[in-house]
């Protein structure tokens, strides 16, 4: 599963145009809409000339027609529910929730209906929810949430969280093509701050495969989304101190690619899991538990976790800055496990 997956193997570092992370999402969406007439977009404010709170869908209504880009009233529970019905009838709706924080308003339609339907009676619900998530941009407790753990814990869903423009496009296309409900957490802090090469046209990145974004021998940092870049920055700092860090980007949170994680930890013997979501009972706990159980004999230090505090995401910069993991905390934790 992880063969050929090291060192950006499927992150085409040298091909494709430079695009921001958010442009890559729009590109992926337009590419798949052009490719498959069953793909349609729905959400609050996504239609017309406006194109959504972040302009991800701007231009789609013009290009593909109003019938394929539907403005919804502010009623997440019913429009995700309607997407369940569309998907059962063979369409592939791509739903935008305006902020990931509002996904909780549509909770039942996701965790009770969409997640359970195939298991119970075989109906297939191929939708994607695009959820602009994460903080660090001073938007307070209701526009900064990272609710992925709720969905990873729920049987029947898939969850992805790209960290690069190329993956943003490639994972979105795979998510749309997948025959199951997929929640696609996009990173607001990366939207316009991160640029990278993105292949033109067809480009898919398989769900369920982590990437080893940086090879190293001394410790493994496992992360996803914006925190991958904090991990890489910390790795850069630590390289100067003679600590060689391997960075694993999970990319898909459900199903989890534990094989890649365990392979890396077997090599390094030290591991740290990092996410911006609340640390307590977050996905980091699952990964740490898997490592603790399955890599027990390779461990030279306890597996550590860094995550958001067990508080709502505070608004004020001095508070959010201590709430939120960053490269300094990551570097410090890696030093600790490496000197264990």
């Amino acid at each position: 599963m992880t063969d050929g997956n090291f060192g950006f193997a499927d992150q085409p570092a040298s091909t494709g145009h430079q695009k921001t992370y958010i442009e890559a999402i729009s590109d992926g969406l337009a590419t798949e809409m052009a490719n498959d007439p069953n793909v349609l977009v729905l959400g609050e404010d996504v239609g017309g000339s406006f194109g959504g709170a972040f302009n991800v869908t701007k231009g789609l209504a013009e290009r593909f027609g109003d019938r394929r880009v539907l403005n919804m009233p502010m009623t997440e529970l019913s429009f995700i529910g309607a997407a369940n019905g569309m998907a059962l009838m063979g369409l592939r709706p791509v739903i935008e929730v305006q902020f990931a924080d509002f996904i909780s308003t549509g909770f039942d339609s996701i965790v009770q209906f969409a997640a359970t339907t195939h298991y119970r009676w075989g109906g297939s619900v191929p939708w994607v929810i695009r959820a602009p998530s994460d903080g660090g941009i001073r938007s307070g407790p209701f526009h900064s949430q990272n609710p992925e753990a709720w969905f990873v814990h729920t049987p029947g869903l898939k969850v992805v969280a790209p960290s690069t423009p190329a993956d943003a496009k490639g994972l979105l296309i795979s998510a749309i093509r997948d025959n199951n409900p997929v929640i696609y957490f996009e990173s607001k802090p990366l939207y316009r701050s991160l640029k990278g090469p993105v292949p033109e046209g067809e480009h898919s990145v398989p769900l369920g495969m982590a990437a080893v974004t940086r090879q190293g021998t001394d410790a493994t940092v496992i992360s996803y989304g914006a925190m991958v870049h904090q991990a890489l920055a910390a790795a850069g700092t630590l390289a100067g101190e003679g600590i060689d860090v391997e960075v694993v980007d999970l990319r898909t949170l459900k199903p989890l690619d534990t094989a890649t994680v365990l392979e890396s930890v077997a090599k390094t013997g030290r591991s740290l899991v990092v996410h911006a979501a609340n640390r307590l009972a977050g996905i980091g706990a699952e990964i740490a538990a898997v490592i603790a159980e399955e890599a027990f004999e390779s461990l030279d230090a306890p597996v550590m976790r860094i995550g958001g505090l067990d508080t709502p995401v505070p608004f004020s910069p001095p508070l959010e800055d201590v709430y939120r993991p960053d490269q300094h905390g990551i570097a410090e934790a890696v030093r600790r496990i490496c000197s264990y």
Partner: protein
Amino acid sequence: MNLRDPAGEDPLSEAERRQIHYWMRLTRTLDDRIISLWKQGRGLGGTFSQRGHEAISVGAGFALGPDDVVAPMHRDLGCYLLRGMTPARLLASQLGRATGVNRGRDANLHGCGDLDLNIIGFVSHLPQSMPVALGAAMAFQYREEPRVAMTFVGDGSSNTGLFHETLNLAAVHEAPLVVIVENNQYAYSTPISQQMAIEDISQRGTAQGVTSEIIDGNDVGAVHGAATVAVERARSGGGPTLIEAKTMRMLGHAIHDGAEYVPADLIDKWRKLDPLERYEQTLRDDGVSDDRAFGAVAARCKAEVASAVRFAEESEWPDPQTVAEGVYAP
């Protein structure tokens, strides 16, 4: 008697009316048998009776064409049956067998979905079937297919936000959706007077701009007539319809519930309005059928149900090895 036709003539053929009667009788027979099985301790988990709801589930379901889609709920046994879900599969499902509709994955009528029959299975969380049926209707619109989606919902469920959201969205999109409200006056132990401050649920549809009306839910002709008009409206681009069918839940909420909280005279009043007996009387009056024929139908239904019970009880259990299979579509 079809309320649609002021001349009093039923637009249905005699054969169709006999079919409707058959489905009602089969529904009643199967329902009665389920209750007796559970009382004998041969059931599994809980189960819901639909007694008294035959006119609604059969009358409305009969108005659909084969390509239309339906999302029924826990008291719509008749609708499942007339769409082609056999008593054998339904019973095997309720008994948790591998041969049941959901292969032992879900309880009673929950999750009895089969897209080959254009039936969407439901989840407990009421009324999740409403937006799903709406989504199906919007898919038909999107693909410009002349298909209609129908769903059923209770009085209790009509208090939920999801009910109102769905009606609103259906109205905005003029979706080909028909919503049948089964107002059976109770949500579990809670009478309608404690659930809402209004008399008629239909006004909730009107308030969202959905064509809405009230019918006698124990008159299968009335139900079928209203549903037929609604289905035609939907199919011809006239948008959604809400039909409030007034009826009464004749037994407890579920098998374990004695419903002591329901006044006895309320039940007595509605027993006299039994939809199956009333329809038989109409068919007799109209000369469409007679007691001999009814006897033959009853015998046929009894035999079908008996063979379904045998099939279900003799069916194998699901293989525990398969427990984790099918969570994801390939």
